[in-house]
């Protein structure tokens, strides 16, 4: 048997398990345990092959899953060891509880993101008091002692510089969906246009790339025809006269 393991992005064993479960829930209400176990193990195998960090936590969850699956496959009248049974139930409950906690925080994180985005649009001024205030320095409170300050300094200075921290980067990628919407309106009005004119307002290469992707999408739907005499000449875009109504592309979500 062959498993095609796509390069899914997941963070840790719980996240992987959740993603596998959600994917199966799309078409069936009850998820088959054996499918989940098989796929989970396939990922483990792939990670080992790619020499990725397979922590004990991945293995621990795999072991629990295999045990549950093995148990499910036993005939109903098979003899069971009560102690083992209880231990397994405990393991299972622990795993379930962790999954639920994980889902809960993922969910509330989305709300926090939303609230932050809303609140971020209110920008405060950060320059402080400009006027020279000619009073003696106010009684400042330093909320730590000398040892605390040393600890802070040590932590700041020890920040690794060789692995840039991308956690807070906003790549500010332009929206392909927005480009699609805009191009549909413009090309219906202008009928024929050069691609260079369509992207004349773009400031960054990545914005032009967004428009190019949008153009490909429109061509795929048959809304525009695209031609280019040779590889150096201008790309000409022509409206086909078709209007497919409200199309949503795969970019709509991003």
């Amino acid at each position, binding site marked *: 048997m062959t498993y095609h393991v796509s390069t899914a992005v997941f963070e840790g064993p719980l*996240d992987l398990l959740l993603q596998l*479960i959600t994917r199966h829930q799309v078409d069936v209400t*009850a998820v088959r345990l054996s499918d989940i176990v098989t796929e989970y193990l396939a990922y483990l195998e792939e990670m080992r092959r790619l020499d990725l960090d397979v922590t004990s936590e991945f293995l621990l969850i795999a072991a629990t899953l295999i045990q549950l699956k093995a148990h499910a496959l036993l005939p109903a009248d098979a003899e069971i060891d009560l102690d083992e049974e209880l231990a397994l*139930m405990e393991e299972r409950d622990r795993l379930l509880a962790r999954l639920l906690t994980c889902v*809960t925080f993922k969910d509330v994180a989305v709300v926090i993101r939303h609230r932050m985005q809303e609140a971020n649009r209110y*920008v405060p001024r950060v320059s402080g008091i400009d006027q020279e205030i000619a009073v003696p320095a106010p009684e400042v409170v330093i909320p730590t002692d000398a040892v605390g300050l040393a600890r802070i300094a040590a932590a700041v200075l020890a920040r690794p510089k060789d692995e840039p921290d991308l956690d807070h*980067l906003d790549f500010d990628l332009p929206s392909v969906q927005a480009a699609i919407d805009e191009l549909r309106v413009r090309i219906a009005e202008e009928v024929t246009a050069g691609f260079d004119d369509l992207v004349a307002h773009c400031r960054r290469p990545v914005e032009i790339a967004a428009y190019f992707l949008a153009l490909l999408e429109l061509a795929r739907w048959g809304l525009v025809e695209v031609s280019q005499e040779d590889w150096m000449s201008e790309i000409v875009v022509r409206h086909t006269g078709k209007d497919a109504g409200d199309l949503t592309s795969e970019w709509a979500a991003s």
Partner: protein
Amino acid sequence: MGSVMSPLAALEAILFVTEAPVPTSELAEVLEVTPEEVERLIEELNANLEARDSGLVARSTAGGWRLYSRPEAYPYLERFSSSATARRLSSAALEVLAVVAYKQPVSRTQIAEIRGVDSDSAIRSLLRLGLIEEAGRLSLPGNPAVYRTTPLFLEKLGLGSLAELPPLADHVPPAEVVGALEETFRPGVAEGA
């Protein structure tokens, strides 16, 4: 114009220069008026700002008042300077922030346990952005630090206090999802076709 300023104008100047939201009581002290008068002045200020088509608004966050640009100005500010606009947090950092917000004070290990994955880089990121801070140390081997959210976190969320966080219970998966999960992992049930 004389050298005396109306309390209304003085209030605006303070809300303009402050580097963090200012509590009503503190404004009352500085302006030498009652807290009720401060609330009334803030209402008057916001009415004036609105009437004069101003780009500013006074808002209450993190237990205090501060002037902000109106959200409609955001596209202009984005064009004007990238530093004025906020950086977006990664989903890992957001998840850690959510865990700290609801479980504070909470340690590195506890965060990793809940998320099922090492969260050190996200924690560092949040510390650097001033959204979380150390809230002391546990008397355990290695004296691990515990973390809590900062007033800046409240301000960035537009919340008055932690009590205004959406109830976590609202985000627990619905019963049918929990049921399906339990069903999946129930030992002793033969695999159906």
